[in-house]
């Protein structure tokens, strides 16, 4: 029901994107990656456990298995996207002004740099070194 004092246009109300213009997208992606992270992180923990005390040859052999490569790429993708969203909220909560903007940029750069590094290593191992 339209409020008499609501100055928004009907189209704006229907879109429901709010003043930040992206609606519930951040929340939804945070939750989506959270759900994905449960099985993915359990797999990651299992990977680390099974590689405990194992030498170079065996570690490379394990990490170059296609199944492991594919899952590890998803671990990195969902995990790093989730952490990027989370750190964004922390920055937005505590740091304001130009410094806040700078940290938000740094956050994006960090997330991309880490995921590029991890993905390259996973692919290099997956394609046989």
């Amino acid at each position, binding site marked *: 029901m339209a409020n008499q004092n609501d100055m928004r246009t009907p189209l704006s109300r229907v879109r429901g994107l709010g003043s930040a213009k992206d609606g519930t997208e951040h929340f939804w992606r945070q*939750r989506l990656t*959270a*759900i994905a*992270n*449960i099985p993915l*992180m359990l797999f990651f*923990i299992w990977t*680390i*456990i*099974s590689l*405990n*005390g194992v030498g*170079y040859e065996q*570690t*490379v052999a394990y*990490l170059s298995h296609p199944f492991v490569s594919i899952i590890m790429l998803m671990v990195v993708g969902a*995990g*790093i996207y989730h*952490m990027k969203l*989370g*750190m964004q909220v*922390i920055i937005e909560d505590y740091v304001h002004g130009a410094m806040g903007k700078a940290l938000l940029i740094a956050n994006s750069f960090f997330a991309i740099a*880490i995921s590029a*590094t*991890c993905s*390259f*290593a*996973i692919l*290099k*191992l997956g394609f046989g*070194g």
Partner: protein
Amino acid sequence: MSETPIQAGATKERPLSPHLMIYKPIPTMVMSILHRITGAALYFGTILVAWWLIATASGQASFETVSWFFSSFIGRLILFAYTFALMHHMLGGIKHLVQDTSAGLGKDFTTKMAKLHPVASVILTVLIWIVGYAVR
């Protein structure tokens, strides 16, 4: 007669909304703060994951270096803390997913869960490390 400034005291410190330290810590609050702290810890911990992966992909010499670090006392301490952070954050996250459905939001229930949360996190962490050494 001197002119009265319109915005008297505009440059003075404005009152801020009350923050963490003003409240008495209660279990749900402490777990919420820990959820954020563990999240931030996991964030910077990805540097270690990236180091481990890139070192393994770079060859035996760098792999031995990273293995030496993680099997050192400090390395194991960091990994243990990292396991705890992951378990605590994961349980907190599952709690959030359940609460997203409006379930389990009662006052007594959330407090009970908040008290159980760190205990379950420690148990899971220790369990992972026991399994880790058992299958070695």
